[in-house]
């Protein structure tokens, strides 16, 4: 069973998104990490994430931009520079910034998509439903992540 890797340092935002995913019947479990270094350690399979049964590679990564230790964009840059299949994992940047410079930078570094953080809980449910429908039902994710 794969997972959705959610990298978000704001505990309240993370909780709301996880709840919306539950309501939207997202079938994959969500793995929540709260900083960029942890995200890289998880994807690289460094300790304590070496056991891939317990810590499976994700089908999709959702990255906040402003993260402690290593920013979301630095994590994205790291993902795309890998020589193994990790480099292909679809990455959706979820940010409260609508600045064109931030959006451009995310695409320059290889983001598949950039979404603005929703402001209301109804919008959040819409985003969660859209995620499920698009990334888990319609999109063909690369299987050769390892």
């Amino acid at each position, binding site marked *: 069973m794969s997972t959705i890797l959610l990298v978000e340092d704001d505990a309240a935002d993370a909780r709301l998104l996880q709840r919306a995913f539950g309501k939207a019947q997202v079938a994959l479990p969500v793995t929540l990490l709260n900083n960029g270094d942890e995200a890289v350690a998880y994807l690289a399979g460094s300790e304590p994430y070496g056991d891939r049964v317990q810590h499976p590679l994700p089908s999709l990564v959702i990255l906040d931009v402003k993260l402690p230790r290593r920013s979301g964009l630095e994590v994205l840059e790291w993902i795309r520079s890998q020589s193994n299949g990790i480099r292909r994992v679809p990455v959706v940047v979820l940010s409260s910034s609508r600045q064109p410079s931030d959006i451009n930078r995310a*695409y320059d570094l290889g983001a*598949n998509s950039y979404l603005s953080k929703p402001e209301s809980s109804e919008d959040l449910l819409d985003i969660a439903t859209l995620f499920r429908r698009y990334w888990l039902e*319609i999109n063909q994710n690369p*299987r*050769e992540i390892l």
Partner: protein
Amino acid sequence: MNAAAADRPILLIEDSDADAALLTRAFTRVAQNAVVHRVRSGEDALAYVMGLKEYGNRSKFPEPGLVLLDLHLGDLGGLQILNVIRHRKGVARVPIVVLSGSAHEDAVSAAYDAGASSFVVKQFEPEQMEKLARAIVSYWLEFNQVPERVITK
């Protein structure tokens, strides 16, 4: 609604007339304001995104908010077009959804390596195709944020 993307046309790169007709019909049915510009060849696709030849007239051929790319084109293969677009300054960022008749694992991986934003399997039943078009429009034109201008001059 993300006005920036929704106001821009969809560029459909598809060499089969039958598939192009099916796709165009589906997209214009689900998004009544959607404008679909279709090109047949890889060469025309590159000319369009780069604004060369007649495509330099941006009031007639506006920069696309989304590119739908058939993987199996006659002249330049779909992967080659992806590679060129992704390395071309100014157009590199446009979302590109690869459409394919099948989801062979190697083809999916190669498309992501070449810079596909997403990979979807074409549907041949009009009803299924419309459902797919609705999901693509809703995700890429209504929710996804794109850079304000694809081409920087």
